[in-house]
C-alpha cells in the first residue's frame, strides 16, 4: 500500500482536490486547513517587552507599553538581564493540546507544524543574532529523548551557540524545594567552564517553547550576560498568561 499524504497533526489523509479550502490553504502546509485554524497567532505586541496581550486581566497593570510583570522585572537586576521576549502563538486550549502531544507524548515531528512562521520571524528580525536553545537538565532530556528547545532551535539556519548548561531538578519535590526552585535566588543554569567560553559583545537569541512568567529565561539570560553577552532576547513558540495546568506545572 502506498503512502497517502496526510495532515501532520490530525493524520487524516489529505484531499487534494480543489476544494474551497484547498484553494485558500497553503499548498505546502504540512497540516490541513482545519488543524491550521486551531492556532491563534499573536498579532499585537501590547507589552513591548514580553509580548503579553492587553486583556481584561492584564490591562489595569499596564504602564504605557509595559505590562505589570515587566514593570516589576525592570526593578530587578535579573529582570533586566532579558532584553525582550517574542512569542508566536497564544497558549490557549489548542496550543496546550498540541504541546501535550509534542512534548509529553513525545511526537517531535510536530515541530514542523510551525516551521514556516518560526523561520519567517527569525529571518525578519533576528538573523544577526546568535541562536541558543535553552538547555534542559540531562535527566529530563534522556527521559524524553529530546530537548524541545533544541527541536525549535534546529529549525533555524546557521550555527548554535553552546556553553550554557542546566542542572537536573531534584526528583521528588517537597513544597520547600519547589518554592526554592521558583525563587529568584535558585540558579539552575551554569556555564560549562571547561571551555572557558565568553560571549563578549554577542546578541543571543534564547529559544524555548513557552514563555510564562519569564523567570526561567531571565535566569539563563543573567548567566549569559555575566559571560559577556551584550543583549539576550527570548524567542518562544507560545505566550502563556493564564494559570498553568497541574501537568504543565509538574513538567516545568
Amino acid at each position, binding site marked *: 500500500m502506498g503512502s497517502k499524504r496526510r495532515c501532520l497533526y490530525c*493524520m487524516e489523509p489529505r484531499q487534494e482536490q480543489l476544494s474551497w479550502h484547498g484553494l485558500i490553504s497553503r499548498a505546502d502546509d504540512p497540516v490541513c486547513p482545519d488543524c491550521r485554524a486551531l492556532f491563534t497567532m499573536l498579532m499585537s505586541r501590547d507589552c513591548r517587552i514580553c509580548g503579553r496581550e492587553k486583556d481584561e486581566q492584564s490591562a489595569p497593570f499596564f504602564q504605557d507599553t509595559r505590562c505589570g510583570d515587566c514593570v516589576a522585572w525592570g526593578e530587578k537586576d535579573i529582570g533586566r538581564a532579558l532584553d525582550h521576549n517574542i512569542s508566536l502563538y497564544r497558549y490557549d486550549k489548542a496550543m496546550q493540546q498540541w504541546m501535550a502531544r509534542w512534548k509529553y507524548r513525545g511526537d517531535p*515531528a510536530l515541530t514542523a507544524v510551525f516551521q514556516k512562521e518560526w523561520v519567517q520571524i527569525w529571518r525578519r528580525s533576528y538573523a544577526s543574532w546568535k541562536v541558543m536553545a535553552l538547555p534542559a537538565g540531562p535527566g529530563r532530556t534522556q527521559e524524553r*529523548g529530546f530537548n524541545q528547545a533544541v527541536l525549535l532551535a534546529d529549525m533555524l539556519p546557521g550555527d548554535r551557540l553552546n556553553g550554557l548548561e542546566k542542572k537536573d531538578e531534584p526528583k521528588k519535590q517537597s513544597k520547600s524545594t519547589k518554592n526554592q526552585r521558583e525563587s529568584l535566588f535558585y540558579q539552575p543554569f551554569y556555564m560549562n567552564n571547561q571551555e572557558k567560553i565568553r560571549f563578549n559583545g554577542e546578541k543571543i537569541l534564547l529559544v524555548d517553547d513557552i514563555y510564562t512568567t519569564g523567570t526561567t529565561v531571565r535566569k539563563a539570560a543573567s548567566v549569559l550576560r555575566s559571560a559577556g553577552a551584550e543583549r539576550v532576547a527570548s524567542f518562544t513558540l507560545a505566550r502563556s498568561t493564564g494559570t498553568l495546568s497541574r501537568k504543565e506545572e509538574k513538567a516545568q
Partner: protein
Amino acid sequence: MSPIQGDADFNHPSYNEICTRLAGRDLLLEEIGEPLEVLLPFLQAGHIVMRPGLSKSGKGWLCHRCLESDPGLFAAFSCARCGQVCTYCRTCLEMGRIDTCGVLFSWNGRAPLPEGTASLQWQGELSPGQQKASNALCRAVADGTELLIWAVCGAGKTEILFRGIEDACLSRRRILLTTPRAEVVMELLPRIRAAFPGLIVKGLYGGSEERFGYADIHIATTHQTRRFRDAFDVVIIDEIDAFPFSYDPSLKQAVDKAAKSGAARIYLTATPSRLLKKQARDGKLPFIQIPRRYHGYPLPVPTLKWIGNWKKALKKDRIPPALLAWCEKKTSAGVPVFVFVSSVEQAETAARLLAEKWEGTIGVHAADPRRHEKIQLFRNKKAPILVTTTILERGVTIKGAEAAVLGAEESIFDEKALVQIAGRVGRSKDQPEGDVMYFHYGKTSAMLEAVRHIQTMNKQGSNAHGE
C-alpha cells in the same frame, strides 16, 4: 556466560508476578515497571524475549507493536537517548513512543494461571433468535473457527455472548472482546462483570486505569488491542463494519497479532459491509442472522421530514420549527431525545439554542474531553436532550430514548449510520416503539436505503418469528 536454565529448575520469587504482567503483551521497559536487573535472569533463561521496536522493511519501517508499515506514519528525530537519528512510529504513539533504539519485551514462559471462576450468573432467557446464535457461537469457540453474527440493532448481542464466554473460560481460554468506541467498552464492562462475578474482567480504552495485569476477559477498544501479542484464544469483534476498524488496516493487523493462531473469531454487526455480506453468501464465512430484536417487536421505521434550509436557520440562531415541535412533544412526555448532527459546530450551536428552551440540554462530540461525563448525565436523565455528532450512533443504549437527525441529507449520514441511529430507539421491552425522525433538506438515496434496510429486516424478522 551463564548457562541457560531449564524451566523446571527456574525458580524466581517474582515469576508469577512478571508472568501475569507480561504474558500476551508487548511492553516497553518503562511499562514493565521493573529494572532491567530483575528481568535479566528471565532473559537468560529465555522466559522473556526482546525484539526491536522497529525494523527496516523494504523501503520503510515496520513497527513491531502495532504493525504499522505506512512510511507516512513514521518520523525521524535526533535522539538524545542513543545520540543517533532515531525513527519512531506515530500510529501507536499514544502507548508511549517506540523508537528504533527502543526494545519490546514479551513473555515466553508458561501461560498465566487463570484466576477467576466462570459461572454465569445471568438469569434471563434468550429469545429463539438469540438461542440459535448462542449455539453457533459455542460451536465456533469450541472449534476455533470464524463466525459472523448479523444481528439487528437491539437483538441483544451481549446476552448472545454469555454462553460462549462461559464455555471458553471453563476450558481456560482467554477472551478479547473488542469494539471501536470507548463508550461501548464502558457500557459492556458492568454487564459482563455482573454476568460473571467470578471472572476478572478488565476494560481498556484511552485513559482507562486498568492497563496491565491478568484478566480472564479483556474488553478493549480496537486501538488498545495493539498492546497484545499472541494473547487470546477467542476474539470477539463488535461492530466489525464500523470506523475505524474497516478504515484502518493496521487495526486489523493489530487484532490478528493479539489473537493466538487458531483462535476463534467472532464478528458482530448490525450493518455488515458489502464484502462481509458477499463472503457470507458465498459460504466463505459462516454466519447467522438475527433479524428480530430480542423483545420481538420490529425496528421503528424512520419518518422523513423536509425542513428547508436548516443550515441557514442555524446561522440565524434558529432551530427549524418542525424539529422544535417534535422536541416539544417528546420532552413534555418525558422522553429522552437524541439529536444527531453532522459537525461539531452544529452540535454546539444546536445545543446552545435548544438549551434556551430546554434547560440542561447538552452538546457532545468525538473530541469532547467531557463526553463520557455528559453521556452519563443524559443517561441519568439530568439532560432532556443530547445533541451529538455521530459518535453515539452505535452501541450506546439509553432506555426509552427517541432520535432525530438534523440534516439527514449530509454525506456523513450514510445508510449504515442512519440504520444505527434508528437502532437507538425502542430498545427496551417496556418501550419497544418510538420515533426516528430524519429531518432533511432533500431526500438522499442513503435515507431511502436505510428505510428499505429496516423494512427488510422487519419482514425477515416476522417470517423468522413464525418458524
